[in-house]
């Protein structure tokens, strides 16, 4: 088989895999536009015959989506700010010092990453109720998400810092800067891309977070969109087109961010963003 034929075959395989992977997303978008009867038609139609655009404003109004999305935004932004402020310093230290204790610290951090949220929620919930944190449910969720996602952020940002040559910092020290000054003047600007990318990934995770929000936030008016979507679906649900419209409104902004920043995200994850 010649080189070009091989490449073509690979391309076909890649497209097929991508199609399988992206099919649920496609199904979400078209179902949202189908009418109630078309939705249940057999065989199913792969393109809506009469797109029902008014499902969107209806769902937005009736489910009070503005409030849910605002709550999601507050929780995700809060978690990202908290993680970035705490995680950057942590990642820097882990990147610059090498000894047994740092290795142990890294191991523990990676361990935390392994534990699933559904396992952690029980002790967290009990702890929060003892501390009275359940009276500030959104803050409580922000802290819980920060604790869960911090390891991921620290590991990514540590790699970014390790890509900043130590000699640059030393040059800044000799040039007359203090260690703190060298960090803010030299290291941080160079690690900015990696930190930004990691923060965006954390934001996208936190925006869709469900387990902690569902368990900790009881008041409907403080719940994020993920919990709102869940409460939309009951045991006898048949309004799938509306649920899909809800899901579309919820995920499209995140998808848009990812598509727009995709090149930077991928290069940030692989190269550490420094030449």
């Amino acid at each position: 088989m010649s080189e070009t034929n091989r490449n073509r075959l690979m391309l076909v395989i890649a497209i097929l895999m991508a199609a399988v992977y992206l099919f649920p997303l496609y199904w979400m978008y078209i179902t949202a536009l189908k009418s109630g009867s078309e939705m249940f038609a057999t065989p199913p139609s792969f393109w809506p015959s009469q797109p029902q655009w008014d499902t969107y404003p209806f769902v937005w109004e009736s489910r009070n989506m503005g409030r849910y999305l605002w709550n999601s935004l507050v929780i995700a932004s809060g978690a990202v700010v908290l993680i970035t402020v705490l995680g950057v310093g942590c990642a820097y230290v882990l990147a610059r010092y090498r000894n047994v204790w740092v290795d142990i610290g890294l191991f523990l951090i990676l361990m935390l990453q392994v534990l699933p949220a559904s396992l952690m929620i029980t002790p967290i919930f009990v702890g929060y109720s003892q501390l009275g944190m359940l009276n500030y449910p959104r803050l409580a969720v922000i802290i819980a998400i920060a604790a869960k996602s911090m390891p991921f952020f620290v590991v990514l940002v540590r790699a970014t810092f390790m890509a900043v040559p130590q000699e640059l910092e030393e040059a800044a020290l000799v040039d007359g800067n203090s260690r703190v000054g060298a960090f803010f003047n030299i290291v941080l600007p160079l690690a900015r891309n990696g930190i930004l990318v990691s923060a965006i990934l954390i934001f996208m995770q936190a925006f869709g977070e469900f387990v902690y929000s569902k368990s900790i936030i009881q008041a409907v008016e403080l719940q994020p969109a993920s919990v709102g979507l869940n409460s939309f679906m009951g045991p006898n649900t048949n309004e799938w087109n509306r649920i899909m419209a809800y899901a579309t409104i919820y995920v499209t902004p995140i998808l848009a961010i990812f598509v727009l920043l995709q090149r930077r995200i991928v290069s940030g994850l692989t190269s550490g963003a420094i030449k």
Partner: protein
Amino acid sequence: MTKQIELSGVNKYYGAFHALKNIELSIEKGTFVALVGPSGCGKSTLLRSLAGLESISTGDLKIAGELMNNVPPRKRDIAMVFQSYALYPHMTVEQNLTYSLRIRGIGKAEAKKAAEEVAATTGLSQLLGRYPRELSGGQRQRVAMSRAIIRHPKAFLFDEPLSNLDAALRVHMRKEIRTLHDRLGATSVYVTHDQIEAMTMADHVVVMKDGVIEQQGAPLELYDRPANKFVAGFIGSPAMNFVPATVGADGRSLAVDVGEKQTIPVDRQLEPGRVVTAGLRPEHLHFVDPGQGVFRLPVGIVESTGSATYITTSTAAEVTIVETSRRSVRTGDIIDISVRPSDVHVFDDKTGVRI
């Protein structure tokens, strides 16, 4: 002459590892000092200790008469040129040059003027607006130098600054750095593993090995009177030949062991019968007419560069000879070699110390 840098009894430990052993070094103002030695000899550690990037464990370190043991780098008023240049990639050439001035609170206009002046002398005027990634290796090297010059520091520290350049540019920059040093009247400490760089650039060469200063002095002093076998083998290219020898009964000659014993005269009185190592520089051995020499050696390999012929003998202790005349010689020939008695170096067989 005032002492610009003084080190006395300096030791450095990394845990149990003894990186610098009892370093004594004093550098006069305006001198160009080269620290040279094989990798891992402690020369870079010593330089970094001068910069304050490493702290010394014991001893005194003075710069311009002030004790600097625990002073952070920013207060030592020294400039350093790194092997990788360490240019700030997110700053333009001008911002790189003025960074140290801006930290010291010097005004924008004044800093810009200083940058333009330095750039004019180092040929960077056209490049001030560029980023380091847009420069060639040689240009980056110049930026690194200029960044050091702009501050008029008490001392310049160079950490193998030429090792990333190609051979031709390296020879050129060698001269340029030395010219710059003389023009600024600066005090420079230059770390290199290349003995030719050290010999050609420095006023004072410090040869180090395993954290110890083996010998220091003027370049030709090290070449003419190496203190021990290590320095003798390190300084000079191609390296000195070492041949096992025994002092003759009269104490004025050596019986050297090159396959068979041959006797060569020396110019000083030695203890008869002592087992020693004779050191002979390739360029001091001369290829002469039959019967004129003190040695007769079989030829092994002949390599010619045009300007010189390198002859390696096929004896057990290989001897290399550099011959600049074009005498035809072939593998298997037996040739006569002469050497002046004053050019024969003698080292103790056990300790390697010069006798």
